[in-house]
């Protein structure tokens, strides 16, 4: 049976979902949001719905449509606003951190406003206020100029910019992970500090970083375990939202995340390594 793509696209539910997603991606610019909606519909309907007709029928048309549309919204924002230049470590944390950085540091929105925006029921994202608060705290600790009007556009120098992990679709290599692990160890230490201050980079710190990196690598986690951690601790999603997204029972993400963190904690203790 062939799918009636125009009916599906112009259905009330799809249009509402599209509007909602465009509004989430484009903050405070109604005209650009409307333009994004138009862009997506134009691209979808181009050449007699050619983009949609690539669908081979294994998945449901609506699931497929959400994915192409989400892709097109991202494409539109990149074309319209270009690539913003947050620090490399922040980009490595993923798009949610970049969004928070943009809202708190660039647009100078109040912390509570940002938390409400991402954690309200109507946002549909299933994010937890504590996690979002913690991410904002970490960004602010790492970037003391965050929210100041004359802040630099980016903390990265040109050499670092060359190490870009290709935000447009590249996979982060293990080599790059090893190279920049020390930076994330510092970030983890910042998260634990009562009064965030710059962590000293000395030879001793480098050696500890190397040891912890090797230790974590040897834990041999599954991809599902790693993704669940990312979804909760980096993207701020609640465990129930993760379970829904990955199609697993509700108790699985919370249990798995706990187990993995415990494994790391035990491994660190065995080697007399401490984060603080």
């Amino acid at each position, binding site marked *: 049976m062939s799918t009636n793509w125009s009916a599906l696209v112009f259905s009330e539910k799809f249009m509402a979902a599209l509007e909602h*997603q465009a509004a989430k991606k484009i903050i405070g610019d109604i005209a650009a949001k*409307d333009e994004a909606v138009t862009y997506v519909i134009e691209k979808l309907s181009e050449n007699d719905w050619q983009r949609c007709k690539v669908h081979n029928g294994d998945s449901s048309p609506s699931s497929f449509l959400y994915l192409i549309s989400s892709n097109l919204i991202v494409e539109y924002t990149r074309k319209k606003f270009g690539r913003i230049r947050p620090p490399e470590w922040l980009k490595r944390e993923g798009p949610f951190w970049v969004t928070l950085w943009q809202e708190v540091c660039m647009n100078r929105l109040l912390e509570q406003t940002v938390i409400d925006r991402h954690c309200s029921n109507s946002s549909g994202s299933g994010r937890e206020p504590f996690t979002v608060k913690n991410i904002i705290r970490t960004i602010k600790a790492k970037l003391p100029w965050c929210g100041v009007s004359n802040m630099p556009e980016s903390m990265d120098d040109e050499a670092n910019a060359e190490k870009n992990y290709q935000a447009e679709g590249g996979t982060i290599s293990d080599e790059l992970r090893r190279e920049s692990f020390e930076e994330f160890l510092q970030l983890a230490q910042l998260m634990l500090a009562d009064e965030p201050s710059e962590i000293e980079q000395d030879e001793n710190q480098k050696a500890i970083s190397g040891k912890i990196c090797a230790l974590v690598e040897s834990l041999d986690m599954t*991809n599902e375990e790693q*993704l669940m951690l990312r979804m909760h*601790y980096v*993207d701020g999603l609640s465990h129930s939202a993760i379970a829904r997204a990955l199609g697993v029972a509700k108790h699985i993400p919370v249990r798995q995340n706990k187990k993995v963190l415990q494994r790391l904690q035990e491994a660190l203790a065995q080697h007399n390594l401490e984060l603080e």
Partner: protein
Amino acid sequence: MTNETTEKQNQKDHALAQLLIHAPRNNAGGYGAEVTLEELALLNEGKLSEQRREQVLGQLDSNPALYEIWQGSQEMASHAESLNLEASTEANRTSKQAAPSLLEQISHFLSDLFSWQGAFATSFGIALGVILMSQTGLDSSNSDSDFGQGIAMQAPIQAPQKASTDHVGSIAPTQEIAKVEVLRIEGNTVHLKVILTTGEEINETYVYKPGKQ
């Protein structure tokens, strides 16, 4: 005190998670072929094989741009789902409101017919009402159809659009539509060419109004 301890523990968990998330993967086998959008849709529906699923999850974890697209689609689906639930709750409420008035009408009718047997009529009316209400409840519980495969794919084009758009042109609801082409889109206005089964071509204009039920 307990809150403080919980917060400390949460911060510690976050810090440990940072290390796990950014450590090398030691993934000698790689993540298989590059994932397609169709495969991501299959992942959302739980239709990928175990092995491929694990590979795709690895790609999502290691590729922020891919993850962003996938998350966006999840949020869209979740929003559409919440609209489905709202519509279903509304339909339930309406059907529950409609049931007593039907009951009332039948009771009146029976009461007029058997005026000398008022008590009998009322009890019969209540019994009939119970049956009708349970029937309506059954119907409305089935009304929450999947929008992708149910309403949107099979309904004629007027049906889904009526709810969300202002119809500027005019097509008699009984006429059959053979094909619809999008001529152009201007802001929230869509210009369509509708070809009827009779061969007649009609130009239509729809104005989309967000949030309008």
